[in-house]
């Protein structure tokens, strides 16, 4: 066995050491996000065969659709508050305009129909396309060459922007050639939320294929 020399004293202090170590470790919690902005996520995906280097005409609705699974798709559409919706629509206009795209009325037959929507609860990626029947033909959706994935959230806000190509309709389904999802906590002042929506939409338009 090991041979320890006999000494005295200091034993009480040493007995307290494990407890001191335990409390020391409790005080060292790993760093976590401190600002609501740090919970924001920008996700984009697109059809690889669609040529995003061309310029297109596009249409935008006047408001951003509120998707609520408590409401049937054929119920009258509801929209998010204009103070948020207008920021979303204006941001899309500015970013597409910077790429040389031109907004026209949906009835004028645009190359691209843009569907901006928002969720204030769970993130419903595959929500029913019937929610858009009031705006354009009651098409289903398909995602050419990519899958937008499936993400769920909690007590979050999500802005979903889908670019559809009406010239590519097959079997009553319109291809969604670009998808952007902005997700974050619905916390902070209106001004803070508006700033985050604006900044995150800008980020979406700096990601492939628009970068």
């Amino acid at each position, binding site marked *: 066995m090991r041979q*320890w*020399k006999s000494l005295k004293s200091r034993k009480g202090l*040493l007995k307290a050491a494990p407890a001191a170590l335990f409390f020391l*470790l409790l005080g060292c919690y790993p760093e976590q996000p401190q600002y609501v902005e740090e919970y924001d*996520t920008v996700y984009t995906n697109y059809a690889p065969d669609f040529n995003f280097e061309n310029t297109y005409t596009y249409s935008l609705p006047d408001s951003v659709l509120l998707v609520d699974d408590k409401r049937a798709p054929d119920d009258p559409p509801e929209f998010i508050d204009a103070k948020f919706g207008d920021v979303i629509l204006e941001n899309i206009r500015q970013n597409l305009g910077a790429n040389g795209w031109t907004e026209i009325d949906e009835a004028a037959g645009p190359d691209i129909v843009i569907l901006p929507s928002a969720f204030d609860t769970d993130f419903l990626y595959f929500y029913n396309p019937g929610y858009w029947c009031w705006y354009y033909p009651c098409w289903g959706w398909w995602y050419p060459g990519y899958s937008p994935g499936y993400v769920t959230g909690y007590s979050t806000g999500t802005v979903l922007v889908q670019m559809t190509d009406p010239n590519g309709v097959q079997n009553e389904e319109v291809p969604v050639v670009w998808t952007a999802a902005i997700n974050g906590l619905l916390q902070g002042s209106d001004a803070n939320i508006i700033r985050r929506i604006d900044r995150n939409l800008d980020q979406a338009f700096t990601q492939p294929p628009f970068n």
Partner: protein
Amino acid sequence: MTYSIGFPTGETSDYFSSTSWRGVNIDYHYMLEDNFAIGFSAGWQVYSENRGLVTETSGTETVSGYRYNYLNSTPLLATGSYFFDTSGDLSPFASLGIGLTYNELQEDIGLFRATSTGWPFTVRPEIGLDYEINYNVGIRTSFRYNYIASGSDLPSLPNFAITVGLVWSR
């Protein structure tokens, strides 16, 4: 019982660039001979990393957001230890631990978290020094290399560690 400071190395450095100041270990030695002991070692080391705003593209998908990585590493090892000199106050030793490590790697982006867990194989060589400060009680410091193999969904996550603590003997 020792407090440990962990240093990421190898593939661990791809996830964590900074030192872990959060670690604790419990080691037990049963002396088979004057200089040789078998025993076990259990521990808990926590790594965390704020990687800031990160944009990642995979194929046609791109995600951007603030990224935080966390690793909880809990080795459970059988050990064999050799004490070079047990006659004086200073007792240098070398040890080899073999066993498993429960690793939980969390990669957060925004509100989303990807978690990978597993029990990868682990080998841990260690050199250290015990210093007797009182009857049956001493101070221990050591240097460890934890080789942690890849497994399940986890990459290999090796690390170095320096430990400082107390040792009791009967």
